């Protein structure tokens, strides 16, 4: 079976998140479903990098981005594991939006909580979902900046062959 393009999974994650009614109607997002944004690593001219993108992230938005892909083991079989991140910049508390995402019911594709959702039929539900808060000294101009990220892994179904 061939590996799924991670950018396709990014779009699928966003489609699922955009179908969480409690999330898109929340005041934590500035413009509902439109506030859930993809960042796709692109080496063409005119693009920047994830650090710049997140630094310039609008208040009241979340950014879904692909962190990397690796091989791993699931059920004692070789598998492909895609690591994703969601950068949180809500109009309010990070803990609230993390809870809304993790426990939110996704109408797309199958009406289950995000933590139990297979965003495409090729991958299993999110594993190792964590939310980490950190303050980082960026540079003299920016000073200390606070970040909050959700990280999780999507494991492909089937054997990597």
């Amino acid at each position, binding site marked *: 079976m061939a590996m799924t393009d991670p950018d396709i999974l990014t779009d699928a994650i966003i489609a699922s998140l955009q179908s969480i009614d409690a999330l898109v109607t929340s005041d934590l997002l*500035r413009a509902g479903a439109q506030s859930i944004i993809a960042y796709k690593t692109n080496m063409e001219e005119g693009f*920047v990098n994830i650090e*710049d993108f997140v*630094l*310039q*992230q*609008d*208040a*009241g938005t979340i950014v879904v981005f692909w962190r990397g892909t690796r091989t791993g083991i699931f059920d004692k079989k070789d598998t492909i594991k895609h690591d994703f991140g969601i950068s949180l910049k809500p*109009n309010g508390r990070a803990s609230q939006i993390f809870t809304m995402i993790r426990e939110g019911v996704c109408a797309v594709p199958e009406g289950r909580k995000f933590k139990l959702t297979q965003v495409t039929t090729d991958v299993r539900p999110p594993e190792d979902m964590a939310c980490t808060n950190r303050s980082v000294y960026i540079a003299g*101009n*920016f*000073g*200390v*900046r606070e970040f909050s990220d959700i990280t999780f892994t999507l494991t492909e179904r089937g054997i990597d062959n």
Partner: protein
Amino acid sequence: MDSFFEQQLAVLNAQMLSSFGTETISYQRRIAGTEAGGDADLQAVPIDPLRLEGFTNGNFAVRWLQKQDLEEANITPAKGDIVRLADGTFTRGGNYTVMQIQEDLGGGVRLVLERRST
């Protein structure tokens, strides 16, 4: 008594504010996110935020003002205070949080601000 350098810098700062202090900002003290005093309107010099972000209307802004004006308004600036900025060419109007405070020897204060809400 202030040194000659500090006196010269103070004169330069006063001249800077009278020439380029084109913006009135609204400054509000906050303690742990809670309002801790009324708003004070202060004259400020808008400093190009392009230096911070590489694009306009972003999340960061820099404003320069005089310490004397803060003292007259009975404000000791602290991180977490709120500055309200009006819409401008390089700045999206709204509430900004004070992230950094820098003071020079001539009584000038530079505020680095971050927009944390829509």
